[in-house]
């Protein structure tokens, strides 16, 4: 265990050093904030969380899973609480309740006349309520606030390691299963016709989502993580008509929002999760107006030209 820990710490130090090489090239006013140790760790966390959320947000947006992402992120709360009670790693508990909730949603959808959106709303609010009740009994309200809204400036080593691991797993999974994931997102019927195991792909993707959500817990928090799973992908969708560039753009938007939000949070002493999401939203609005092909300005201009 101590060997693993040492290895993890070494990796974190190496990555921070690498990031600082880049930061030190930037102007003094920008890089000054990163002289603090806690800011360096926050920067690494922000980059990682921005990257994995961005990567998955393309799938979430194209698969119309926004509400499902929201559902899983809320459903994670009771798992975190129970894991805390039992002294387990957060991820285990979060994953169990996240997966149970998505199974429950599927079961209600299939076997009753309740529509999918109602099934999701029903299940995730119930899970969330359970989480709130447990946490109100066992933890201080500051602790609850940190889980709900994130606190990247005070990120723990264990959380940073988890984020790093989640990032590696997600990256590897998307790289190795790129074709099944693309096909399942684009045309699940074709995936089935070609004999792919669509159940495995479906739950694999849900598992990656859960992993990402748990990894982002300390940075943006449960309530706002879904924004990072929607906004970068939506922004990228407006900017390109190709899949791989869309993945790349949404990763960049995720990283840029996380880093800029972190800086805003540091300079103005505001909540990091909120700041990160607001930056992402600002980037989306900018794109909505100014995107070269799908932006509002271009569309209005084209319409005006056509009607003339």
């Amino acid at each position, binding site marked *: 265990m101590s060997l693993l820990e040492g290895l993890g710490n070494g990796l974190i130090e190496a990555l921070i050093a690498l990031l600082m090489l880049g930061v030190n090239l930037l102007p003094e006013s920008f890089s000054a904030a990163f002289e603090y140790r806690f800011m360096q760790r926050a920067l690494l966390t922000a980059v990682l969380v921005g990257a994995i959320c961005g990567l998955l947000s393309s799938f979430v947006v*194209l698969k119309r899973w926004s509400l499902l992402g929201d559902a899983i992120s809320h459903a994670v709360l009771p798992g975190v609480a129970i894991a805390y009670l039992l002294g387990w790693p957060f991820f285990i508990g979060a994953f169990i309740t996240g997966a149970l909730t998505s199974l429950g949603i599927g079961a209600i959808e299939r076997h009753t*006349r309740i529509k999918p959106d109602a099934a999701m709303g029903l299940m995730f609010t119930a899970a969330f309520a359970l989480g709130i009740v447990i946490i109100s009994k066992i933890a201080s309200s500051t602790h609850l606030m940190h889980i709900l809204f994130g606190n990247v400036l005070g990120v723990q080593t264990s959380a940073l390691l988890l984020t790093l691991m989640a990032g590696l797993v997600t990256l590897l999974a998307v*790289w*190795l299963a*790129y*074709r*099944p994931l*693309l*096909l399942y*997102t*684009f*045309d*699940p*019927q*074709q995936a*089935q*016709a*070609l*004999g*792919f195991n669509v159940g495995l792909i479906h739950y694999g993707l849900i598992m990656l989502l859960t992993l990402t959500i748990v990894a982002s817990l300390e940075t943006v928090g449960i309530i706002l993580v879904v924004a990072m799973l929607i906004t970068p992908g939506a922004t990228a*969708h407006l900017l*390109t*008509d*190709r*899949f791989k*560039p*869309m993945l790349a753009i949404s990763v960049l938007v995720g990283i840029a929002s996380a880093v800029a939000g972190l800086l805003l949070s540091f300079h103005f002493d505001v909540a990091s999760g909120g700041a990160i999401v607001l930056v992402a939203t600002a980037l989306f609005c900018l794109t909505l107006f100014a995107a070269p092909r799908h932006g509002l300005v271009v569309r209005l201009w084209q319409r005006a030209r056509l009607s003339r």
Partner: protein
Amino acid sequence: MTDAPALEARRLFAAYHREPVLSDISLTLAAGQWTAIVGPNGAGKSSLLKVVLGTLRPLRGELRVLGASASQQRRAGKIAYMPQHEQVEWDFPVSVRETVMTGRYGLMRRDPWWQRVVPQRWANSLHRDAVDEALDAVDMREHAARPIGELSGGQKKRVMLARALAQQAEILLLDEPLAGVDPPSERLILRMLERERRAGRSIVMVTHDLPSARQHADQVALINHVLVGIGAPDEMLSDAMLAQLAVGGSPKGGLCVAA
């Protein structure tokens, strides 16, 4: 291999949420034939295709595809599928070439593992050649780099046909391949399907287009939840049979024809 029928259903029942869509369907489609499936909207024509594709699980009954189970043949890449227009996410950020390439994804699983982690241009050129050929066949090579959302209705259909062709499967399942298509595209699609049949492939086409069914299909299956009839196009598309199809048919009579 060629002796086994392309599709053999025995007493097939299927339902969506307790709403029955297919009831007691028994039919045998010989390999190498072009079959048109005709019936009213919501009569279970697409559902029959979905049972073959594995997206709809039958409640009862048996289905054999080329002498083996459907799931075996899907994994073997023997079944290609061309979806209805509404089934496709046209906003999806893929180019025409990438879309057609997805037809090869099943076969790519047989490639050595390292090919899936390197860019496509270093991987097996077999797949690229098949895609180029399919794009040429439907006359879409010059549009290969365009996003699929930009295409016209007929071009979109041709791309989906190209995807099915690129797979080089034994059976082509087509859901309304001629709906909303301009006349030149329609002629092109029918010409390509003729070519595929001459190459020994089986074609199963759900359609509302009776003239083309009459002209091109070897046989027509009339389906309105039950099998109303199956036989030669002229016989099945007679006024009397079509009237019977509209009222839901007599399952007994239909089954006798099928047997």
